[in-house]
């Protein structure tokens, strides 16, 4: 069957957006219906994103979609609202949908502890809509708009429990996020003032023609700072260790798993590679930021006693790996970085879900208070073990391959120092995840946990799903799959400004 991508592409935004407004209408009584509807929505998004990924392969190149078929050419600039589906967007879409499906499956029982279920799902869907739009959009201003949709709903979701900690974390996150958004908007305004275009492809074209000047450098710095806050790179990371643990567990999984990637890392690499064009200096800046995050996140994670807080610091560290590898700018480096990004989305959301499962049954997040829980919660224990081994880089799991690739890429690019840092931090990661396993799941079972039972079935299902994916993702490096999934994503970045521009501009003329 020939799939017409042109018709279904906007559904990736329309479905979650529509559900986001329908679900709050269900009110307080129909919570089960809200569960079912939310799960159906995310399941359909998974199908849709896989269809888009496969369909894009059949079609060959990228797809450009103009909203309403409306565009106007004025003074050599094309105005209109467009969506661009290339390899990278397709990969991100699949990741967002898979993690959000696992999270909604998990939420259906986990959220029994909270009230206002339909509002929760409404915000959740809005967040997905924001992220999907963010990875699909083809112009700077819509990037900002979707980024804000995702960010505003995540501020509200972090505060969802309305306890002191959650409100405090959310307020901190909101202030930093809002300052970051101002910076992003100001830099977009600066870019528009200088180059007269908002479409990323045309912006890149103009920038290549006119050259980088002081104004666009200022804009670049503000963009990096603003998006760095959203991605929680190290000098801008202060909000993450508070916000991610405070949210309900499925939301932590979404925030750490995909939100910081979709609205942070994705936006950074899109701007750096497809608008400004990678230069050695810019690459160096990314690599330094990445390495800093890697080291600081890893070291701070070592001394955490709170399960979710440890995971949050570990997210900073792993995002550092991604940014470091992509900053190398070599084909292998970009491939490794994107692969690690995909893997991290899966195993970090798995780990957050297991921490949520532990919290659901025991009511604590402190590692010291747990112990021996693997006897009472076998599924949770095993899936958490899988996740920990993946993130620490133990061979059969996906994390091993991507970390190995990152280190090889660093060495191949002649960056020995960065490679050494990556190796050391990977050992540190292993150390603190061994601590998690020992304290929480193995060792002696404490008396007060004698009554603890395994979590309900749906929660187990979502954890098992992600754990299976952790093993299966290693297969993405197998030649057939690699060419289908990872290499188009890499090419989208590696071909840089010119490639992106050709993709978008050749499709400008064609109808639709």
């Amino acid at each position, binding site marked *: 069957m020939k799939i017409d991508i042109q018709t279904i592409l906007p559904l990736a935004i329309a479905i979650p957006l529509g559900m986001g407004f329908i679900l709050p209408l269900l009110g307080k009584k129909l919570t089960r219906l809200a569960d079912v509807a939310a799960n159906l929505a995310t399941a359909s998004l998974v199908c849709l994103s896989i269809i888009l990924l496969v369909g894009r392969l059949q079609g060959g190149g990228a797809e450009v979609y103009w909203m309403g078929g409306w565009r106007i050419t*004025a003074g050599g600039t094309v105005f209109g609202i467009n969506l661009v589906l290339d390899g990278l967007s397709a990969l991100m879409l699949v990741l967002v949908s898979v993690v959000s499906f696992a999270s909604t499956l998990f939420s259906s029982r986990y959220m029994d502890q909270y009230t206002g279920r339909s509002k929760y799902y409404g915000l959740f869907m809005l967040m997905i809509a924001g992220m999907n739009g963010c990875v699909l959009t083809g112009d700077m201003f819509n990037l900002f708009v979707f980024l804000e949709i995702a960010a505003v709903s995540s501020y*509200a979701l972090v505060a969802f429990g*309305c306890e*002191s900690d959650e409100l405090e974390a959310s307020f901190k996150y909101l202030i930093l996020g809002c300052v970051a958004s*101002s910076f992003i*908007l100001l830099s977009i305004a600066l870019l528009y003032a200088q180059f007269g275009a908002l479409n990323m492809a045309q912006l890149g074209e103009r920038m290549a023609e006119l050259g980088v000047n002081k104004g666009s450098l200022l804009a670049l710095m503000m963009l990096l700072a603003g998006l760095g806050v959203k991605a929680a790179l190290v000098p801008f990371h202060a909000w993450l260790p508070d916000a991610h643990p405070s949210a309900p567990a499925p939301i932590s999984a979404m925030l750490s798993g995909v939100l910081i990637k979709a609205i942070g890392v994705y936006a950074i690499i899109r701007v750096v590679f497809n608008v400004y064009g990678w230069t050695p200096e810019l690459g160096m800046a990314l690599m330094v930021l990445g390495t800093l995050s890697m080291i600081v996140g890893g070291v701070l994670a070592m001394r*955490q006693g709170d399960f979710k807080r440890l995971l949050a610091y570990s997210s900073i560290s792993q995002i550092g790996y991604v940014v470091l590898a992509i900053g190398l700018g070599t084909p292998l480096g970009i491939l490794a970085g994107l692969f690690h990004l995909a893997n991290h989305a899966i195993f970090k959301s798995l780990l957050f879900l297991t921490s949520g499962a532990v919290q659901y049954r025991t009511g604590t997040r402190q590692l010291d208070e747990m112990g021996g829980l693997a006897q009472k919660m076998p599924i949770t224990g095993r899936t958490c073990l899988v996740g920990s081994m993946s993130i620490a880089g133990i061979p059969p799991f996906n994390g091993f391959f991507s970390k190995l690739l990152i280190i090889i890429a660093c060495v191949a690019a002649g960056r020995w120092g960065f490679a050494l840092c990556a190796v050391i931090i990977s050992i540190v990661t292993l150390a603190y995840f061994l601590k998690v396993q020992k304290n929480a799941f193995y060792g002696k079972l404490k008396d007060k946990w004698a009554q603890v039972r395994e979590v309900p079935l749906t929660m187990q299902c979502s954890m098992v799903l992600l754990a299976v994916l952790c093993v299966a993702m290693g297969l993405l490096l197998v030649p057939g799959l690699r060419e289908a999934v990872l290499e188009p994503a890499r090419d989208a970045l590696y071909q840089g400004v010119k490639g992106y521009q050709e993709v978008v501009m050749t499709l400008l003329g064609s109808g639709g």
Partner: protein
Amino acid sequence: MIYVLCLILFLVGLYGVLSQKNLIKLIIGLGIMEYAVNMFLIMVGYRKDGKAPIMESGTGLDKFLSGAVDPLPQAMVLTAIVINLAVLALAIAIAMRLYQKYGTYDITEIRRLRG
């Protein structure tokens, strides 16, 4: 340059966010930052003696382009205002809830999360 004034206003807002200890004043600082950005956007689109960007019948695209102010930044500002409204409303709601929990608006006293 009049753009510098926008930048100064932006920095005033940033200074407010960084230096104030009261939650509400922090939020006001955020508001000032957003206004500065919005004003900058409007100035980007401004043209001396420009007309309102409404196409009348009989005006060609070229004439429209040479006569009217740039409508795109205005659309962007409108969108930015809506987003800003949502963020500020949420910020105020959270600040009020924080006040209920802690009984103060002082951020130096609202510090449970550390480490």
